[in-house]
Protein backbone atom coordinates (compact mmCIF):
# COMPACT_ATOMS: atom_id res chain seq x y z
CA UNK A 1 0.00 0.00 0.00
CA UNK A 2 1.92 3.02 -1.14
CA UNK A 3 1.01 6.01 0.85
CA UNK A 4 -0.36 7.98 -2.02
CA UNK A 5 -2.80 5.48 -3.28
CA UNK A 6 -4.41 5.54 0.10
CA UNK A 7 -6.53 8.56 -0.35
CA UNK A 8 -8.68 9.53 -3.21
CA UNK A 9 -6.87 7.52 -5.84
CA UNK A 10 -8.60 6.87 -9.10
CA UNK A 11 -8.39 3.13 -8.43
CA UNK A 12 -10.97 1.19 -6.52
CA UNK A 13 -10.22 -0.15 -3.08
CA UNK A 14 -10.38 -3.74 -4.34
CA UNK A 15 -7.98 -2.93 -7.09
CA UNK A 16 -5.56 -1.42 -4.63
CA UNK A 17 -5.73 -4.34 -2.24
CA UNK A 18 -5.16 -6.77 -5.10
CA UNK A 19 -2.16 -4.81 -6.26
CA UNK A 20 -0.55 -4.68 -2.82
CA UNK A 21 2.48 -6.83 -2.09
CA UNK A 22 1.11 -7.55 1.38
CA UNK A 23 -1.93 -9.24 -0.07
CA UNK A 24 0.17 -11.59 -2.11
CA UNK A 25 2.59 -12.44 0.68
CA UNK A 26 -0.34 -13.09 3.01
CA UNK A 27 -1.73 -15.36 0.33
CA UNK A 28 1.61 -17.14 0.03
CA UNK A 29 1.61 -17.73 3.79
CA UNK A 30 -1.91 -19.11 3.58
CA UNK A 31 -1.15 -21.48 0.70
CA UNK A 32 2.06 -22.64 2.35
CA UNK A 33 0.12 -23.24 5.55
CA UNK A 34 -2.57 -25.26 3.81
CA UNK A 35 -0.07 -27.45 1.97
CA UNK A 36 1.91 -28.16 5.12
CA UNK A 37 -1.24 -28.88 7.10
CA UNK A 38 -1.91 -31.74 4.72
CA UNK A 39 1.52 -33.26 5.36
CA UNK A 40 1.84 -32.38 9.02
CA UNK A 41 -1.45 -31.92 10.87
CA UNK A 42 0.45 -30.43 13.79
CA UNK A 43 1.17 -27.33 11.78
CA UNK A 44 -2.27 -25.84 12.15
CA UNK A 45 -2.52 -26.25 15.91
CA UNK A 46 -2.97 -23.02 17.77
CA UNK A 47 0.17 -23.68 19.79
CA UNK A 48 2.31 -23.97 16.69
CA UNK A 49 0.78 -20.98 14.97
CA UNK A 50 1.39 -18.96 18.09
CA UNK A 51 5.02 -20.07 18.09
CA UNK A 52 5.43 -18.96 14.50
CA UNK A 53 3.91 -15.64 15.28
CA UNK A 54 6.04 -15.08 18.32
CA UNK A 55 9.25 -16.19 16.64
CA UNK A 56 8.63 -13.81 13.76
CA UNK A 57 8.17 -10.88 16.12
CA UNK A 58 11.82 -10.18 16.88
CA UNK A 59 12.86 -9.90 13.25
CA UNK A 60 9.50 -8.30 12.49
CA UNK A 61 9.91 -5.42 14.93
CA UNK A 62 13.38 -4.72 13.60
CA UNK A 63 11.98 -4.85 10.06
CA UNK A 64 9.41 -2.23 11.05
CA UNK A 65 12.30 -0.05 12.17
CA UNK A 66 14.17 -0.69 8.95
CA UNK A 67 11.20 0.31 6.80
CA UNK A 68 11.50 4.12 7.13
CA UNK A 69 15.24 3.85 6.49
CA UNK A 70 14.66 1.92 3.28
CA UNK A 71 11.81 4.20 2.22
CA UNK A 72 14.17 7.16 2.55
CA UNK A 73 16.56 5.41 0.17
CA UNK A 74 19.00 4.25 2.85
CA UNK A 75 19.93 0.93 4.39
CA UNK A 76 20.99 -0.07 7.87
CA UNK A 77 23.10 -3.18 8.05
CA UNK A 78 24.22 -2.44 11.59
CA UNK A 79 20.93 -3.49 13.21
CA UNK A 80 22.36 -6.81 14.42
CA UNK A 81 25.19 -4.99 16.16
CA UNK A 82 22.85 -2.38 17.60
CA UNK A 83 20.80 -5.26 18.99
CA UNK A 84 23.99 -6.48 20.63
CA UNK A 85 24.76 -3.04 22.06
CA UNK A 86 21.21 -2.62 23.37
CA UNK A 87 21.10 -6.08 24.87
CA UNK A 88 24.40 -5.51 26.59
CA UNK A 89 23.27 -2.14 27.92
CA UNK A 90 20.15 -3.67 29.37
CA UNK A 91 22.22 -6.46 30.89
CA UNK A 92 24.73 -4.12 32.48
CA UNK A 93 22.14 -1.75 33.91
CA UNK A 94 19.89 -4.45 35.34
CA UNK A 95 22.85 -6.41 36.57
CA UNK A 96 23.79 -3.34 38.60
CA UNK A 97 20.48 -3.83 40.39
CA UNK A 98 18.73 -0.88 38.81
CA UNK A 99 14.95 -0.85 38.47
CA UNK A 100 13.46 -2.08 35.20
CA UNK A 101 12.39 1.36 34.02
CA UNK A 102 15.95 2.60 34.23
CA UNK A 103 17.08 -0.40 32.24
CA UNK A 104 14.45 0.15 29.59
CA UNK A 105 15.21 3.84 29.39
CA UNK A 106 18.93 3.18 29.05
CA UNK A 107 18.35 0.55 26.37
CA UNK A 108 16.07 2.77 24.34
CA UNK A 109 18.53 5.62 24.71
CA UNK A 110 21.36 3.39 23.49
CA UNK A 111 19.32 2.29 20.47
CA UNK A 112 18.40 5.83 19.57
CA UNK A 113 21.99 6.94 20.11
CA UNK A 114 23.40 4.25 17.81
CA UNK A 115 20.81 5.08 15.15
CA UNK A 116 21.48 8.78 15.49
CA UNK A 117 25.20 8.27 15.06
CA UNK A 118 24.55 6.28 11.87
CA UNK A 119 22.12 8.88 10.62
CA UNK A 120 24.32 11.85 11.47
CA UNK A 121 27.31 10.44 9.61
CA UNK A 122 25.12 9.59 6.63
CA UNK A 123 23.31 12.93 6.57
CA UNK A 124 26.07 15.36 7.48
CA UNK A 125 29.25 13.68 6.27
CA UNK A 126 27.29 12.41 3.27
CA UNK A 127 28.83 8.96 3.13
CA UNK A 128 26.91 6.06 1.58
CA UNK A 129 24.60 4.33 4.11
CA UNK A 130 25.78 0.84 3.25
CA UNK A 131 29.38 1.71 4.10
CA UNK A 132 28.60 3.73 7.19
CA UNK A 133 26.47 1.00 8.70
CA UNK A 134 28.98 -1.63 7.60
CA UNK A 135 31.55 0.26 9.66
CA UNK A 136 29.25 0.68 12.66
CA UNK A 137 28.31 -3.01 12.41
CA UNK A 138 31.95 -3.79 13.04
CA UNK A 139 32.33 -1.10 15.69
CA UNK A 140 29.14 -2.04 17.53
CA UNK A 141 29.99 -5.71 17.77
CA UNK A 142 33.41 -4.82 19.04
CA UNK A 143 32.16 -2.34 21.65
CA UNK A 144 29.63 -4.86 22.93
CA UNK A 145 32.55 -7.19 23.60
CA UNK A 146 34.55 -4.44 25.27
CA UNK A 147 31.65 -3.23 27.41
CA UNK A 148 30.83 -6.68 28.75
CA UNK A 149 34.43 -7.81 28.81
CA UNK A 150 32.88 -10.92 27.29
CA UNK A 151 30.71 -11.66 30.31
CA UNK A 152 27.24 -13.14 29.98
CA UNK A 153 24.53 -11.61 32.13
CA UNK A 154 22.06 -14.01 33.71
CA UNK A 155 21.29 -11.98 36.79
CA UNK A 156 19.07 -8.96 36.51
CA UNK A 157 18.94 -7.98 40.15
CA UNK A 158 15.63 -6.80 41.40
CA UNK A 159 14.29 -6.49 37.85
CA UNK A 160 14.83 -10.22 37.20
CA UNK A 161 11.24 -11.17 37.41
CA UNK A 162 9.74 -8.17 35.73
CA UNK A 163 12.00 -8.28 32.69
CA UNK A 164 11.28 -11.97 32.19
CA UNK A 165 7.58 -11.33 32.64
CA UNK A 166 7.73 -8.58 30.09
CA UNK A 167 9.67 -10.43 27.43
CA UNK A 168 8.47 -13.95 27.98
CA UNK A 169 5.03 -13.32 29.43
CA UNK A 170 1.57 -13.56 27.97
CA UNK A 171 -1.35 -11.14 28.03
CA UNK A 172 -4.83 -12.32 27.12
CA UNK A 173 -3.34 -15.54 25.81
CA UNK A 174 -0.87 -13.90 23.45
CA UNK A 175 2.85 -13.33 24.03
CA UNK A 176 3.57 -9.71 24.94
CA UNK A 177 5.99 -9.32 22.06
CA UNK A 178 3.12 -9.90 19.64
CA UNK A 179 1.44 -6.77 20.97
CA UNK A 180 4.67 -4.88 20.43
CA UNK A 181 4.71 -5.97 16.80
CA UNK A 182 1.08 -5.05 16.26
CA UNK A 183 1.49 -1.66 17.93
CA UNK A 184 4.63 -1.09 15.88
CA UNK A 185 2.81 -1.83 12.64
CA UNK A 186 -0.12 0.42 13.52
CA UNK A 187 2.03 3.32 14.71
CA UNK A 188 4.31 3.15 11.69
CA UNK A 189 1.38 2.81 9.34
CA UNK A 190 -0.14 5.89 10.86
CA UNK A 191 3.13 7.78 10.66
CA UNK A 192 3.74 6.82 7.06
CA UNK A 193 0.29 7.65 5.81
CA UNK A 194 -0.84 10.48 8.04
CA UNK A 195 2.18 12.42 9.25
CA UNK A 196 4.48 14.94 7.67
CA UNK A 197 7.40 12.76 8.73
CA UNK A 198 6.14 9.86 6.64
CA UNK A 199 5.39 12.06 3.68
CA UNK A 200 8.90 13.50 3.82
CA UNK A 201 10.47 10.07 4.02
CA UNK A 202 8.76 9.06 0.79
CA UNK A 203 9.75 12.35 -0.82
CA UNK A 204 13.40 11.91 0.14
CA UNK A 205 13.42 8.36 -1.14
CA UNK A 206 11.74 9.44 -4.37
CA UNK A 207 13.89 12.45 -5.19
CA UNK A 208 16.26 13.74 -2.56
CA UNK A 209 17.36 16.96 -4.32
CA UNK A 210 13.73 17.81 -4.97
CA UNK A 211 12.91 17.23 -1.32
CA UNK A 212 15.75 19.51 -0.35
CA UNK A 213 14.60 22.24 -2.74
CA UNK A 214 11.11 21.98 -1.28
CA UNK A 215 12.53 23.06 2.03
CA UNK A 216 12.19 19.68 3.69
CA UNK A 217 14.77 19.26 6.48
CA UNK A 218 16.25 16.28 4.66
CA UNK A 219 19.16 15.73 7.01
CA UNK A 220 17.01 15.73 10.12
CA UNK A 221 14.46 13.40 8.59
CA UNK A 222 17.17 10.98 7.55
CA UNK A 223 18.70 11.02 11.00
CA UNK A 224 15.29 10.44 12.54
CA UNK A 225 14.77 7.43 10.26
CA UNK A 226 17.97 5.79 11.51
CA UNK A 227 17.14 6.81 15.07
CA UNK A 228 13.71 5.19 14.66
CA UNK A 229 15.41 2.05 13.42
CA UNK A 230 17.69 2.12 16.45
CA UNK A 231 14.68 2.65 18.70
CA UNK A 232 12.86 -0.37 17.29
CA UNK A 233 16.01 -2.45 17.66
CA UNK A 234 16.13 -1.38 21.31
CA UNK A 235 12.51 -2.46 21.74
CA UNK A 236 13.42 -5.81 20.20
CA UNK A 237 16.38 -6.07 22.57
CA UNK A 238 14.17 -5.56 25.61
CA UNK A 239 11.74 -8.26 24.59
CA UNK A 240 14.44 -10.60 23.35
CA UNK A 241 16.48 -10.33 26.54
CA UNK A 242 13.36 -10.80 28.62
CA UNK A 243 12.40 -13.83 26.59
CA UNK A 244 15.88 -15.36 26.62
CA UNK A 245 16.51 -14.40 30.23
CA UNK A 246 20.16 -13.77 29.43
CA UNK A 247 22.38 -11.45 27.45
CA UNK A 248 25.36 -12.51 25.46
CA UNK A 249 27.28 -10.04 23.38
CA UNK A 250 26.86 -12.19 20.27
CA UNK A 251 23.12 -11.60 20.29
CA UNK A 252 21.80 -10.53 16.90
CA UNK A 253 24.83 -11.58 14.87
CA UNK A 254 23.83 -11.84 11.22
CA UNK A 255 20.29 -10.55 11.80
CA UNK A 256 20.77 -7.64 9.39
CA UNK A 257 20.28 -9.77 6.33
CA UNK A 258 17.17 -11.42 7.76
CA UNK A 259 15.70 -8.05 8.63
CA UNK A 260 16.41 -6.62 5.20
CA UNK A 261 15.01 -9.74 3.56
CA UNK A 262 11.76 -9.39 5.53
CA UNK A 263 11.42 -5.73 4.63
CA UNK A 264 12.02 -6.40 0.96
CA UNK A 265 9.70 -9.39 0.84
CA UNK A 266 7.08 -7.07 2.26
CA UNK A 267 7.40 -4.75 -0.72
CA UNK A 268 9.99 -2.14 0.23
CA UNK A 269 12.32 -1.12 -2.56
CA UNK A 270 16.03 -0.76 -1.85
CA UNK A 271 16.17 2.15 -4.28
CA UNK A 272 13.90 4.06 -1.96
CA UNK A 273 10.47 5.61 -2.16
CA UNK A 274 8.37 2.52 -1.48
CA UNK A 275 7.54 0.40 1.52
CA UNK A 276 4.88 -0.17 4.13
CA UNK A 277 4.57 -0.97 7.80
CA UNK A 278 2.37 -3.99 7.29
CA UNK A 279 4.70 -5.39 4.63
CA UNK A 280 7.64 -5.52 7.01
CA UNK A 281 5.67 -7.52 9.57
CA UNK A 282 4.18 -9.88 7.03
CA UNK A 283 7.56 -10.47 5.41
CA UNK A 284 9.00 -11.61 8.71
CA UNK A 285 6.06 -13.93 9.27
CA UNK A 286 6.53 -15.50 5.84
CA UNK A 287 10.18 -16.33 6.54
CA UNK A 288 9.31 -17.84 9.90
CA UNK A 289 6.43 -19.82 8.40
CA UNK A 290 8.76 -21.34 5.82
CA UNK A 291 11.20 -22.37 8.51
CA UNK A 292 8.53 -23.88 10.69
CA UNK A 293 6.77 -25.58 7.80
CA UNK A 294 9.95 -27.26 6.62
CA UNK A 295 10.66 -28.47 10.12
CA UNK A 296 7.22 -29.96 10.53
CA UNK A 297 7.18 -31.41 7.05
CA UNK A 298 10.33 -33.26 8.04
CA UNK A 299 12.53 -31.65 5.42
CA UNK A 300 16.25 -31.90 6.13
CA UNK A 301 17.09 -28.61 7.85
CA UNK A 302 20.07 -28.22 5.54
CA UNK A 303 17.59 -27.37 2.78
CA UNK A 304 16.07 -24.53 4.74
CA UNK A 305 18.32 -21.82 3.33
CA UNK A 306 17.49 -22.89 -0.20
CA UNK A 307 13.79 -22.48 0.40
CA UNK A 308 14.19 -19.12 2.11
CA UNK A 309 16.40 -17.89 -0.71
CA UNK A 310 13.91 -19.00 -3.35
CA UNK A 311 11.09 -17.28 -1.51
CA UNK A 312 13.07 -14.04 -1.38
CA UNK A 313 13.56 -14.23 -5.13
CA UNK A 314 9.91 -15.05 -5.71
CA UNK A 315 8.80 -12.13 -3.55
CA UNK A 316 10.87 -9.52 -5.34
CA UNK A 317 9.89 -10.99 -8.67
CA UNK A 318 6.27 -10.62 -7.65
CA UNK A 319 6.94 -7.05 -6.56
CA UNK A 320 8.45 -6.37 -9.98
CA UNK A 321 5.51 -7.80 -11.87
CA UNK A 322 3.14 -5.85 -9.67
CA UNK A 323 4.94 -2.57 -10.15
CA UNK A 324 4.90 -2.98 -13.91
CA UNK A 325 1.14 -3.40 -13.83
CA UNK A 326 0.66 -0.58 -11.37
Amino acid at each position, binding site marked *: MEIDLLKGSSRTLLNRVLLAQETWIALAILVLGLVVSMIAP*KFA*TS*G*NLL*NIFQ*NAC*FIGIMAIGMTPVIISGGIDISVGSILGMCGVTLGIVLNADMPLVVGIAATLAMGVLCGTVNGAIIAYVKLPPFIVTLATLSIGRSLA*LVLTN*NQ*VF*YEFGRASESI*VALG*GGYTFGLPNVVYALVVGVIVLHFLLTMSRWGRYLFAIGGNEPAARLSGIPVDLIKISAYAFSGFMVAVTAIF*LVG*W*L*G*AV*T*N*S*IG*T*GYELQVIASTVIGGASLTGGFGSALGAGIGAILVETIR*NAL*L*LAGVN*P*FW*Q*GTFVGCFILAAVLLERIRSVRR
Partner: protein
Amino acid sequence: EEREFALVFKVLNNAFSPPIQAGCEAAAKKLGDVKCTYIGPTEYDEAKEVQLAQDMVTRGVAGLGISAGNPKAMARIMKMAKEKGIPVVTYDTDVLPEDAGLRSTYIGTDNYEFGVALAQKVLAHKKNGTVCIQSGAPASENLKARVQGIRDTLAGVTKDKGVETLTGQNGWTEPAGCPVYNNDDITLAAQQVRDVMTNNPELSAFVAVGGWAQYAPEAYKQAMTPLKARLDSKDLVVVFGDNFGPQLPLLAAGLSHYNIGQRPYDMGFETIMALDKLSKGGTVEPFIKTGTEICTPEDALTTCGKVAN
Protein backbone atom coordinates in the same frame (compact mmCIF):
# COMPACT_ATOMS: atom_id res chain seq x y z
CA GLU B 1 3.90 -46.95 18.64
CA GLU B 2 7.16 -45.13 17.78
CA ARG B 3 8.50 -42.66 20.32
CA GLU B 4 10.08 -39.47 19.00
CA PHE B 5 13.04 -38.09 20.89
CA ALA B 6 14.30 -34.69 19.79
CA LEU B 7 17.90 -33.58 20.22
CA VAL B 8 18.34 -29.85 19.81
CA PHE B 9 21.92 -28.76 19.12
CA LYS B 10 23.43 -25.27 19.11
CA VAL B 11 24.56 -25.28 15.52
CA LEU B 12 24.50 -27.97 12.87
CA ASN B 13 27.27 -26.45 10.80
CA ASN B 14 30.00 -27.67 13.14
CA ALA B 15 32.42 -30.60 13.50
CA PHE B 16 30.66 -31.77 16.64
CA SER B 17 27.33 -32.12 15.02
CA PRO B 18 27.74 -35.23 12.82
CA PRO B 19 29.04 -37.55 15.56
CA ILE B 20 26.25 -36.48 17.92
CA GLN B 21 23.71 -37.18 15.23
CA ALA B 22 25.35 -40.53 14.47
CA GLY B 23 25.22 -41.50 18.13
CA CYS B 24 21.62 -40.39 18.36
CA GLU B 25 20.61 -42.44 15.35
CA ALA B 26 22.59 -45.48 16.41
CA ALA B 27 20.89 -45.52 19.79
CA ALA B 28 17.48 -45.08 18.19
CA LYS B 29 18.19 -47.99 15.88
CA LYS B 30 19.36 -50.12 18.77
CA LEU B 31 16.17 -49.46 20.71
CA GLY B 32 14.05 -50.11 17.66
CA ASP B 33 10.88 -48.24 18.62
CA VAL B 34 12.53 -44.83 18.87
CA LYS B 35 12.91 -42.08 16.29
CA CYS B 36 15.81 -39.63 16.62
CA THR B 37 14.90 -36.12 15.52
CA TYR B 38 18.13 -34.16 15.42
CA ILE B 39 17.77 -30.43 14.79
CA GLY B 40 19.37 -27.07 15.32
CA PRO B 41 20.00 -23.80 13.54
CA THR B 42 22.31 -24.24 10.56
CA GLU B 43 24.34 -21.24 11.66
CA TYR B 44 24.91 -20.25 15.27
CA ASP B 45 21.93 -18.32 16.62
CA GLU B 46 20.90 -18.67 20.26
CA ALA B 47 17.42 -17.29 19.83
CA LYS B 48 16.70 -19.60 16.92
CA GLU B 49 17.83 -22.61 18.91
CA VAL B 50 15.48 -21.69 21.72
CA GLN B 51 12.67 -21.29 19.23
CA LEU B 52 13.39 -24.72 17.78
CA ALA B 53 13.27 -26.26 21.23
CA GLN B 54 9.99 -24.51 21.84
CA ASP B 55 8.65 -25.85 18.56
CA MET B 56 9.55 -29.35 19.73
CA VAL B 57 7.74 -28.88 23.01
CA THR B 58 4.70 -27.58 21.18
CA ARG B 59 4.84 -30.53 18.85
CA GLY B 60 4.80 -32.84 21.85
CA VAL B 61 7.81 -35.13 21.46
CA ALA B 62 8.30 -38.05 23.83
CA GLY B 63 11.61 -36.76 25.11
CA LEU B 64 13.90 -33.80 24.70
CA GLY B 65 17.67 -33.53 24.70
CA ILE B 66 19.02 -30.01 24.89
CA SER B 67 22.40 -28.48 24.31
CA ALA B 68 21.81 -25.13 25.96
CA GLY B 69 23.41 -22.42 23.82
CA ASN B 70 21.66 -19.84 25.97
CA PRO B 71 21.14 -21.67 29.26
CA LYS B 72 18.78 -19.19 30.86
CA ALA B 73 16.42 -19.11 27.92
CA MET B 74 16.52 -22.87 27.55
CA ALA B 75 15.59 -23.24 31.19
CA ARG B 76 12.24 -21.65 30.43
CA ILE B 77 11.57 -24.01 27.55
CA MET B 78 12.54 -26.90 29.76
CA LYS B 79 10.06 -25.73 32.32
CA MET B 80 7.38 -25.73 29.62
CA ALA B 81 8.41 -29.25 28.71
CA LYS B 82 8.29 -30.34 32.31
CA GLU B 83 4.79 -28.94 32.65
CA LYS B 84 3.76 -30.99 29.63
CA GLY B 85 5.36 -34.05 31.17
CA ILE B 86 8.11 -34.37 28.62
CA PRO B 87 11.33 -35.84 30.02
CA VAL B 88 14.27 -33.49 29.49
CA VAL B 89 18.00 -34.00 29.64
CA THR B 90 20.85 -31.71 28.69
CA TYR B 91 23.92 -32.77 26.79
CA ASP B 92 27.13 -31.07 25.68
CA THR B 93 26.17 -27.73 27.24
CA ASP B 94 24.34 -27.69 30.55
CA VAL B 95 21.98 -25.14 32.05
CA LEU B 96 23.00 -23.00 35.01
CA PRO B 97 23.29 -24.72 38.38
CA GLU B 98 20.15 -23.07 39.73
CA ASP B 99 18.13 -24.56 36.87
CA ALA B 100 19.61 -28.02 37.24
CA GLY B 101 16.33 -29.23 38.67
CA LEU B 102 14.65 -28.77 35.33
CA ARG B 103 16.55 -31.62 33.68
CA SER B 104 16.98 -35.17 34.77
CA THR B 105 20.65 -35.34 33.92
CA TYR B 106 23.51 -33.67 32.10
CA ILE B 107 25.37 -35.83 29.65
CA GLY B 108 28.73 -34.53 28.54
CA THR B 109 31.98 -33.01 29.58
CA ASP B 110 32.65 -30.69 32.47
CA ASN B 111 34.10 -27.81 30.52
CA TYR B 112 35.99 -26.28 33.42
CA GLU B 113 37.54 -29.66 34.13
CA PHE B 114 38.31 -29.90 30.46
CA GLY B 115 40.30 -26.68 30.71
CA VAL B 116 42.03 -27.97 33.82
CA ALA B 117 43.03 -31.11 31.95
CA LEU B 118 44.45 -29.05 29.09
CA ALA B 119 46.48 -26.94 31.50
CA GLN B 120 47.74 -29.90 33.47
CA LYS B 121 49.33 -31.24 30.32
CA VAL B 122 51.15 -27.96 29.99
CA LEU B 123 52.27 -28.04 33.60
CA ALA B 124 53.61 -31.53 33.08
CA HIS B 125 56.36 -30.04 30.98
CA LYS B 126 56.60 -26.38 31.92
CA LYS B 127 56.50 -24.82 35.32
CA ASN B 128 56.29 -21.24 34.12
CA GLY B 129 56.55 -19.10 31.04
CA THR B 130 54.28 -17.50 28.47
CA VAL B 131 51.09 -19.09 27.22
CA CYS B 132 48.74 -18.15 24.41
CA ILE B 133 45.21 -19.49 24.51
CA GLN B 134 43.08 -19.84 21.38
CA SER B 135 39.31 -19.85 21.61
CA GLY B 136 36.38 -19.66 19.21
CA ALA B 137 33.46 -17.29 19.65
CA PRO B 138 34.15 -15.04 22.65
CA ALA B 139 30.59 -15.35 23.92
CA SER B 140 30.46 -19.16 24.14
CA GLU B 141 29.95 -20.30 27.73
CA ASN B 142 31.53 -23.69 27.17
CA LEU B 143 34.68 -22.18 25.79
CA LYS B 144 34.86 -19.55 28.49
CA ALA B 145 34.70 -22.24 31.14
CA ARG B 146 37.57 -24.04 29.45
CA VAL B 147 39.67 -20.88 29.25
CA GLN B 148 38.95 -20.25 32.92
CA GLY B 149 40.00 -23.76 33.79
CA ILE B 150 43.29 -23.25 32.01
CA ARG B 151 44.01 -19.93 33.64
CA ASP B 152 43.12 -21.05 37.14
CA THR B 153 45.21 -24.17 36.84
CA LEU B 154 48.25 -22.38 35.49
CA ALA B 155 47.89 -19.70 38.14
CA GLY B 156 47.59 -22.40 40.75
CA VAL B 157 44.32 -21.17 42.20
CA THR B 158 41.00 -22.87 42.73
CA LYS B 159 37.80 -22.31 40.80
CA ASP B 160 36.27 -19.99 43.35
CA LYS B 161 39.25 -17.61 43.17
CA GLY B 162 39.26 -17.42 39.39
CA VAL B 163 41.85 -15.21 37.72
CA GLU B 164 41.48 -13.00 34.69
CA THR B 165 44.36 -12.54 32.27
CA LEU B 166 47.57 -14.21 33.44
CA THR B 167 50.07 -11.51 34.35
CA GLY B 168 52.71 -13.49 36.15
CA GLN B 169 50.66 -15.54 38.63
CA ASN B 170 52.56 -18.69 39.40
CA GLY B 171 55.10 -17.59 36.77
CA TRP B 172 52.69 -17.57 33.85
CA THR B 173 51.93 -14.63 31.59
CA GLU B 174 49.91 -14.18 28.42
CA PRO B 175 51.74 -12.20 25.73
CA ALA B 176 50.27 -9.14 24.06
CA GLY B 177 47.37 -9.93 21.73
CA CYS B 178 46.46 -13.17 23.49
CA PRO B 179 44.07 -14.88 23.90
CA VAL B 180 43.04 -15.07 20.26
CA TYR B 181 39.43 -15.58 19.25
CA ASN B 182 38.69 -17.00 15.81
CA ASN B 183 34.89 -16.81 15.80
CA ASP B 184 34.81 -20.40 14.51
CA ASP B 185 36.50 -19.25 11.29
CA ILE B 186 39.00 -21.98 10.49
CA THR B 187 41.02 -19.86 8.11
CA LEU B 188 41.39 -17.17 10.73
CA ALA B 189 42.31 -19.79 13.32
CA ALA B 190 45.15 -21.06 11.15
CA GLN B 191 46.33 -17.53 10.45
CA GLN B 192 46.30 -16.79 14.17
CA VAL B 193 48.49 -19.77 14.95
CA ARG B 194 51.00 -18.63 12.40
CA ASP B 195 50.88 -15.00 13.58
CA VAL B 196 51.28 -15.99 17.21
CA MET B 197 54.20 -18.29 16.42
CA THR B 198 55.91 -15.71 14.23
CA ASN B 199 55.55 -12.95 16.75
CA ASN B 200 56.30 -14.87 19.93
CA PRO B 201 59.36 -16.94 19.12
CA GLU B 202 59.90 -17.55 22.84
CA LEU B 203 56.39 -18.79 23.61
CA SER B 204 56.35 -21.61 26.16
CA ALA B 205 52.90 -23.02 25.57
CA PHE B 206 50.04 -22.81 23.12
CA VAL B 207 46.68 -24.11 24.25
CA ALA B 208 43.67 -24.25 21.96
CA VAL B 209 40.41 -25.03 23.72
CA GLY B 210 39.03 -26.49 20.49
CA GLY B 211 40.37 -28.00 17.32
CA TRP B 212 39.82 -25.11 14.83
CA ALA B 213 43.37 -24.48 13.69
CA GLN B 214 43.98 -28.19 13.23
CA TYR B 215 40.95 -28.47 10.95
CA ALA B 216 43.28 -26.67 8.57
CA PRO B 217 45.93 -29.39 8.77
CA GLU B 218 48.22 -28.12 6.07
CA ALA B 219 48.23 -24.51 7.21
CA TYR B 220 48.86 -25.76 10.71
CA LYS B 221 51.72 -27.96 9.53
CA GLN B 222 53.26 -25.01 7.74
CA ALA B 223 53.07 -22.82 10.81
CA MET B 224 54.45 -25.46 13.20
CA THR B 225 57.03 -27.35 11.15
CA PRO B 226 59.66 -24.58 11.47
CA LEU B 227 59.34 -24.96 15.24
CA LYS B 228 59.80 -28.72 15.14
CA ALA B 229 63.05 -28.58 17.11
CA ARG B 230 61.42 -26.60 19.92
CA LEU B 231 58.42 -28.89 19.86
CA ASP B 232 60.58 -32.02 20.03
CA SER B 233 62.50 -30.65 22.99
CA LYS B 234 59.23 -29.57 24.60
CA ASP B 235 60.62 -26.05 24.75
CA LEU B 236 57.22 -25.19 23.32
CA VAL B 237 54.27 -27.21 24.57
CA VAL B 238 51.18 -27.39 22.40
CA VAL B 239 47.92 -28.79 23.70
CA PHE B 240 44.75 -28.89 21.66
CA GLY B 241 41.15 -29.61 22.42
CA ASP B 242 39.33 -32.25 20.36
CA ASN B 243 40.64 -35.27 18.52
CA PHE B 244 38.81 -35.36 15.21
CA GLY B 245 40.11 -36.95 12.03
CA PRO B 246 42.30 -34.20 10.61
CA GLN B 247 43.91 -33.55 13.97
CA LEU B 248 45.35 -36.97 14.66
CA PRO B 249 48.00 -37.11 11.93
CA LEU B 250 49.24 -33.75 13.19
CA LEU B 251 49.51 -35.14 16.68
CA ALA B 252 51.25 -38.23 15.38
CA ALA B 253 53.72 -36.02 13.56
CA GLY B 254 54.58 -34.34 16.82
CA LEU B 255 53.11 -30.98 15.85
CA SER B 256 51.07 -30.98 19.02
CA HIS B 257 51.81 -32.85 22.21
CA TYR B 258 48.38 -33.70 23.47
CA ASN B 259 44.92 -33.67 21.99
CA ILE B 260 42.17 -33.97 24.51
CA GLY B 261 38.96 -35.07 22.91
CA GLN B 262 35.39 -35.23 24.00
CA ARG B 263 33.01 -37.96 23.00
CA PRO B 264 30.22 -36.35 20.98
CA TYR B 265 29.08 -39.71 19.65
CA ASP B 266 28.60 -40.93 23.18
CA MET B 267 26.71 -37.76 24.05
CA GLY B 268 24.22 -38.43 21.29
CA PHE B 269 23.98 -42.11 22.14
CA GLU B 270 23.65 -41.70 25.89
CA THR B 271 21.09 -38.95 25.54
CA ILE B 272 18.73 -41.27 23.71
CA MET B 273 19.38 -44.03 26.20
CA ALA B 274 18.65 -41.72 29.10
CA LEU B 275 15.48 -40.43 27.49
CA ASP B 276 14.42 -44.01 26.84
CA LYS B 277 14.78 -44.84 30.51
CA LEU B 278 13.04 -41.68 31.64
CA SER B 279 10.11 -42.09 29.28
CA LYS B 280 9.61 -45.57 30.68
CA GLY B 281 9.46 -44.10 34.16
CA GLY B 282 13.03 -45.00 35.13
CA THR B 283 15.68 -42.79 36.69
CA VAL B 284 19.18 -41.80 35.65
CA GLU B 285 22.32 -40.46 37.29
CA PRO B 286 22.28 -36.63 37.64
CA PHE B 287 25.58 -36.31 35.72
CA ILE B 288 26.58 -38.77 33.05
CA LYS B 289 30.18 -38.02 32.21
CA THR B 290 30.96 -39.00 28.69
CA GLY B 291 34.50 -38.27 29.66
CA THR B 292 37.49 -37.08 27.79
CA GLU B 293 40.12 -38.93 25.93
CA ILE B 294 43.74 -37.86 26.05
CA CYS B 295 45.60 -38.61 22.86
CA THR B 296 49.39 -38.57 22.53
CA PRO B 297 51.60 -38.80 19.47
CA GLU B 298 52.17 -42.47 20.30
CA ASP B 299 48.56 -43.61 20.19
CA ALA B 300 47.27 -41.01 17.77
CA LEU B 301 47.02 -43.31 14.80
CA THR B 302 46.19 -46.50 16.65
CA THR B 303 43.80 -46.59 19.55
CA CYS B 304 42.95 -42.96 20.04
CA GLY B 305 39.96 -41.10 18.72
CA LYS B 306 38.22 -44.14 17.31
CA VAL B 307 35.03 -43.44 19.17
CA ALA B 308 34.77 -39.81 18.15
CA ASN B 309 35.20 -40.65 14.53
